[in-house]
């Protein structure tokens, strides 16, 4: 047993590399809360020290209390009882209780509603730590987005009623979006919410694949405007657990067995409207979803961490041919690659979280400065980060989730036959990792979300922001030059794709190559920032350039090949299997 924050110095180093001074000042609104709240920080240093202490508490609970329960949780899962209630696996029930006691169930929630008022980047680090202990727990721990959505958009009355209880572990929540015929395409949601003569709302319909649908506070996406059949007709409503919501079924899944995935039936369920009508999908769910995507970037990172450690430990003790297997170059390459990708994933996840914090913090600051001359500059920067986030959040989710699958797969490879057995946790990591590339938008959808920013060259502005204020010493100049060179090649490929005669189809076909290359550039610059602060990280930077850029160049070559047959000759390339 160990503290999963203290035994992993990379988390603190990554936090340090983010330089969270401005984030802390924005989050604390100029440290004005210290006057009324005796635990609020008085300056940036104080706040950042709090962030690290919170992570230390998180690492203690995750490493010492939750990790030992993960195997059992995976095995027993959650149980749907005859009366329609759900009994959590013992480890999950314990975790909900402990995280409530620590108040880590309300990391980003304001002090006055019972939370810790910490930035998103701290929640990301918590999710990273929790996912290493038990990836399936993160799905419940990460549902802090429910409290955050209520906090951002609901009336003060609704906030006061629900948010404090979500922070102290009395309640858990769920985001209730997906339906049998509305998965990636949420615009086609059929569940309805109607008002009676007194204006009370009632929800009716069926929802599917709802993580923690057995929770106490359900945020439901439902159609309030029957005259609109698309996203404009949808609103967000809060339904409390009760006889009007029945858990009809718990899904049997490949992985994350600790996370109860429910099918829900709503029958005249009394509901409260969150915010304004018609903004359910367009504003609130998009915000919730973006937060959830940031969460998955952390979950992928945490699974990668667990897998990497299991592989590295095993390889250091397993002997074959008279030596430990970590002395074989092929396994060294595999584990070295896992290690560097893991660090890159963490850098991207934390940096994109910081960028979310800056957008939100600057937006709040702008509200207070409206009309003053300095407001314009704040607004300009807010817009800059808002633009970044549209590209960075999907990039981070995409990269971390794909990385977690590679890492877990690699760990199984390192453990060989043992890795295939249930005696070791790596097969669980492999099963758990698989969902990360699917939910909150598949990898393909993340690419669709990120490609516009890549085509517009926005990733180069991100690089400028990453390197802003970084003292790039002479030993790092060559790396920066190489990153710039590769960025120019990525641009060139993007221009080719833009100009191709097949138009949109060609861009859709090759978007992944371009997004992969742009992620390579962004992570490369993050490694420069990392190495400038921690010289021992130069090795990871050099590896990134030496080992990743060549394969990314090969991907760009595909984008520039003009090849379209995979779409145009699809029927011949991938014929429908004959029935008989």
């Amino acid at each position, binding site marked *: 047993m160990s503290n999963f924050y203290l035994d992993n110095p990379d988390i603190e180093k990554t936090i340090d590399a983010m330089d969270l001074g401005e984030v802390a000042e924005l989050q604390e609104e100029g440290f004005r809360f210290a006057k009324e709240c*005796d*635990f609020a920080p008085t300056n940036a240093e104080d706040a950042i020290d*709090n962030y690290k202490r*919170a992570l230390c508490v998180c690492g*203690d*609970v995750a490493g010492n209390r939750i990790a030992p329960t993960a195997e059992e949780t995976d095995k027993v899962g959650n149980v749907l009882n005859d009366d329609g209630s759900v009994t959590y696996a013992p480890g999950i029930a314990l975790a909900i209780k402990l995280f409530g006691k*620590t*108040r*880590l169930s309300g990391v980003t929630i304001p002090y006055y509603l019972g939370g*810790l008022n910490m930035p998103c980047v701290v929640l990301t680090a918590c999710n990273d730590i929790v996912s290493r202990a038990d990836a399936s727990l993160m799905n419940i721990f990460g549902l802090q987005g429910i409290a955050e959505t209520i906090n951002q958009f609901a009336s003060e009355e609704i906030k006061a009623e629900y948010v404090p209880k979500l922070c102290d572990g009395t309640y858990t929540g769920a985001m209730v979006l997906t339906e049998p015929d509305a998965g990636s395409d949420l615009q086609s949601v059929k569940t309805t919410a109607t008002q009676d003569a007194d204006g009370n709302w009632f929800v009716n319909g069926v929802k599917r694949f709802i993580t923690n649908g057995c929770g106490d506070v359900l945020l439901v996406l439902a159609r309030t405007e029957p005259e609109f059949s698309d996203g404009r007709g949808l609103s967000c409503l809060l339904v409390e657990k009760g006889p009007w919501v029945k858990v009809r079924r718990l899904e049997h899944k490949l992985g994350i067995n600790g996370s109860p995935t429910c099918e829900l039936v709503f029958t005249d369920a009394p509901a409260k409207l969150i915010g304004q009508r018609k903004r359910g999908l367009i504003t609130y769910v998009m915000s919730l979803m973006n937060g959830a995507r940031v969460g998955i970037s952390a979950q992928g990172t945490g699974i990668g961490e667990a897998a990497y450690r299991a592989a590295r430990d095993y390889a250091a003790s397993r002997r074959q041919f008279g030596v430990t297997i970590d002395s074989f170059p092929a396994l060294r390459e595999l584990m070295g690659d896992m290690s560097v990708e893991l660090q890159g994933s963490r850098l991207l996840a934390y940096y994109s979280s910081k960028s979310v914090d800056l957008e939100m913090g600057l937006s709040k600051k702008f509200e207070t400065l409206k009309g003053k001359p300095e407001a314009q500059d704040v607004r300009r920067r807010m817009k800059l980060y808002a633009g970044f986030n549209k590209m960075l959040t999907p990039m981070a989710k995409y990269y971390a989730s794909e990385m977690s699958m590679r890492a877990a797969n690699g760990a199984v490879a390192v453990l060989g036959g043992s890795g295939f057995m249930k005696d070791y946790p790596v097969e669980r990591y492999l099963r758990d990792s698989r969902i990360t590339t699917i939910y909150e938008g598949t990898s393909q959808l993340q690419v669709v979300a990120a490609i516009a920013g890549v085509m517009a060259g926005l990733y180069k502005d991100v690089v400028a922001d990453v390197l802003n204020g970084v003292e790039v010493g002479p030993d790092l100049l060559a790396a920066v030059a190489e990153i710039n060179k590769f960025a120019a090649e990525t641009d060139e490929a993007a221009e080719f794709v833009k100009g191709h005669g097949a138009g949109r189809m060609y861009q859709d076909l090759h978007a992944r190559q371009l997004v992969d290359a742009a992620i390579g550039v962004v992570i490369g610059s993050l490694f420069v920032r990392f190495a400038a602060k921690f010289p021992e990280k130069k090795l990871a930077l050099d590896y990134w350039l030496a080992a990743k850029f060549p394969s990314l160049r090969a991907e760009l070559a595909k984008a520039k090949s003009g090849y379209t047959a995979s779409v145009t000759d699809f029927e011949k390339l991938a014929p429908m299997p004959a029935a008989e």
Partner: protein
Amino acid sequence: MCGMNASKKSGYRCVVCIKQVPDTKKVTGEAMKADGTINRAALPAIFNPEDRNALEAALRVKDEHGGKVIAVAMGLPAACAILRDALMCGADEAYLVTDRKAAGSDTLATSYILSCAVKMFQPDMVFCGRQAIDGDTAQTGPQIAEKLGFAAITYLEDLKMDGDFAIATRDIGTGVEKDRVKLPALFTVTDRFGELRPFDVRRVMKYKKAKAAVENGGEPLEGDLKIGQLSCDDIGAEPERCGFAGSPTNVNKIVSVVLAGGDFKEVAPTDEGVGALVAELVADHTIG
């Protein structure tokens, strides 16, 4: 409510005695200096593990029945670190007993000094860890009880309250014993006493700023963040019973023993063979 687990009206005043100790799990060859004393620089100082259990026991009494939890540590100003931990964990007040006159105290002098401090708080219950991982004597708790005239319940595993009585479950090695004990009483708590609570991060953020006067240029802080500081005079301890003067224990010699595997010995799997081995281990005081 009658019978078990009924509260006293006003809740219970609980004092927890805690100690800062070198982390003996991290002992290496550098743990001892040439003169036989501990090389504190080589070992991180931590909250004695079973004292965390003692604190947990007191906090559970307070959670269920109300009252107050007061943490007391004797030691150098550095021991304020564990007093801050106690506050973060849920203690209401924290006091550091620190005095040059207390230097060199053995368990007799330590328990005398602590008993003087504890007496000031007029507790219903005193909680100590079973033993500290640096000395492993398990003497200090029972000796405090003796000086206070309190019943001493050692090896506590579970506790229920019944008005002016406590129902204590203690580990007696071969099983458990249940005692009904009239308060005031002192308990020494083992690591089998339930799970420790994690820190509430809000308390961590607040009490990281708690300080004793000695850490603040001699000025005590105001309000919640104050760690009380007590000298031997403050607690009315007689100087001749403190520190070296009050410590009859005389350390003759300290030897750094490095344990290493040596030869093995085959023991016949018969009653005679095992009997001979047991006799040998008793003779060299390994067991018995």
